């Protein structure tokens, strides 16, 4: 028996773009315990979504995946898998845009019933009842009535709940979330986060939550992995990372988040733009934008170094960081 449910080791994704090979995800290693929620944060294009999609085999055709993915379905050691092995068995995914994530030509009840019908051999009526049960589980009011509705007849928040219900229909042990709250307004965002939190404890489900929104990750996740330019630059428990970042990029991200307490200080952006996957700089990839940059940063090879008990950083000069408070 193992506490680990997922191990991603040295993952890389190589795509072809304009006749050139690019590697938008490189050397990514993360692991996840049972019932644990891991957040993956970073700017758009940092490879966080690709990382998530490679776990479930949703990469564009022609993508080459390197490294090792291991998943433990039952109370056993995680073992290497092919994406087809976990489709419908153990891993499910929810997406950002609830309109394109629900088939517009299917009533939502039928959509949710599809998984149970195929995987549990339920007949039409049983699958329908199961769908209504799942809709109730995700907090959809009057599910009997709404099961007969089309996706466009539901509000954004309800659509997102339908998507979650459909994802849960295969009884996953790991739920992948690709920015599922980004397209929702803040009050609904809160409800969906609360729902995910509740489902996680009730169903003993692990979650990987990808978002550019640190506050959202802080609310839901135990641990966080910060990604920059296709690599994980910092990992650790969410509260520790937020309180005391060990990578200049994390610190800069924290500074660029507006907060209610912060009234006098000017909001700081990060100088420059994230590099394109076609032209990642040598050495530390954040060095060109880093305010603490030293000469040896340009030649530093990538490695995550253990700091303290549960923290890891990709920065070779973490001692230079001034911290959030300053």
């Amino acid at each position, binding site marked *: 028996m193992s506490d680990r449910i997922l191990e991603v080791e040295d993952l890389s994704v190589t795509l072809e773009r304009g006749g050139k090979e690019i590697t938008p995800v490189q050397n990514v290693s993360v692991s996840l315990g049972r019932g644990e929620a891991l957040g993956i944060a970073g700017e758009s294009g940092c490879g966080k979504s690709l990382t998530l999609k490679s776990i479930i085999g949703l990469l564009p055709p022609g993508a080459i995946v390197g490294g090792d993915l291991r998943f433990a379905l039952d109370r056993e050691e995680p073992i290497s898998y092919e994406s087809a092995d976990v489709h419908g068995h153990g891993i499910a995914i929810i997406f950002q845009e609830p309109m394109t994530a629900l088939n517009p030509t299917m009533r939502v009840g039928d959509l949710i019933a599809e998984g149970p019908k195929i995987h549990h051999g339920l007949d039409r009526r049983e699958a329908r009842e199961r769908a209504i049960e799942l809709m109730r589980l995700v907090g959809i009011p009057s599910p009997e009535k709404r099961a007969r509705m089309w996706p466009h007849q539901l*509000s*954004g928040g309800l659509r997102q709940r339908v998507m979650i219900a459909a*994802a849960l229909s295969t009884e996953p042990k790991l739920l992948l979330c690709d920015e599922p709250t980004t397209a929702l307004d803040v009050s609904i965002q809160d409800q969906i986060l609360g729902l995910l939190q509740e489902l996680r404890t009730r169903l003993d489900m692990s979650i990987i939550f990808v978002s550019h929104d640190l506050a959202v990750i802080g609310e839901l996740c135990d641990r966080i992995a910060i990604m920059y330019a296709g690599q994980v630059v910092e990992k650790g428990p969410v509260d520790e990372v937020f309180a005391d970042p060990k990578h200049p990029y994390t610190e800069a991200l924290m500074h660029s988040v507006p907060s209610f307490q912060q009234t006098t200080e000017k909001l700081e952006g990060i100088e420059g733009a994230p590099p394109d996957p076609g032209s990642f700089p040598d050495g530390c990839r954040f060095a060109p934008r880093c305010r603490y940059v030293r000469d040896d940063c340009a030649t530093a090879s990538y490695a995550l170094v253990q700091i303290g008990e549960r923290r890891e950083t990709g920065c070779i000069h973490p001692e230079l960081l001034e911290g959030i408070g300053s």
Partner: protein
Amino acid sequence: MTDPTALPLDLSAADSQGPLDDRKFWQRLPVKVWVGLAIVLIYVLIAVFAPLLAPHDPLAIDPANKLASPTGDHLLGTDELGRDVLSRLLYAARVDLPIGFLGALMPMVLGTILGALAGFYGRWTDTLVMRTADVVQAFPAYILVIVLVFALGQGAKSILVAFTVLAWVVYARIIRGEVLRIRDLDYVHAARVAGLGRLRILRAHVLPNAINQTLIYLPSDIVFATLALAAFSFLGLGIPPPTPEWGAMIAEGQPFIRTNWWLATIPGLIIVVFGLGVSLIGEGFEERLHG
């Protein structure tokens, strides 16, 4: 309508605000759709009840009474063999309508299947289907019909085979494009992750969303098939005599256009009005779906 159990912030009242509610879809159809449907319905009723409506046997020859002007007995006169023109026009609906509809539906079915396979499976399936489509499109239509008529004999079967072989290409292209777009949408990804089989995904999640575009094209294709049948019959490649058919009747009436102008004109008008009705339906639906 308020829902007592609804979460206060969930805007659950958004139920039924959808633009395409089941009932409202029909209520909000433009008037032109109803006009078109009425026209087509009249044609269908005529085809079904032609034996009851026709005053004479459409094939009965009466050489003594040929090329008669309209009278009480022969409301639209007689043709050069003395056959009752009205009866022949009514009976012709039983030939032209089925070929018009089937001549569009059969290519649609074939094109949808081939286009879906090409778009969804890609690789060599795609290459095979689309190169075949290129060849068909480059082939002169009338040559193909002539070849088929020689091979299969004159008649409805040859015409339908020819239409199917020629016209599937357009449907295949439309469907392939749609499938390529849809197969990368999140709901198809979600279906894959849920472990559904590829055929199930294609049938339940991809095709129903791809087919709208072909349904918009279908009415204009029905018009095309009807006109093409008339054209082929006019050229003697269509339905063989003595079966009444509108295009053939135009051809038969043409020599008498100076004396008995209605012989060629009325079947022509009948085809035009039918085409108009079908086009109105198509246009109306298109406005409704895009508007």
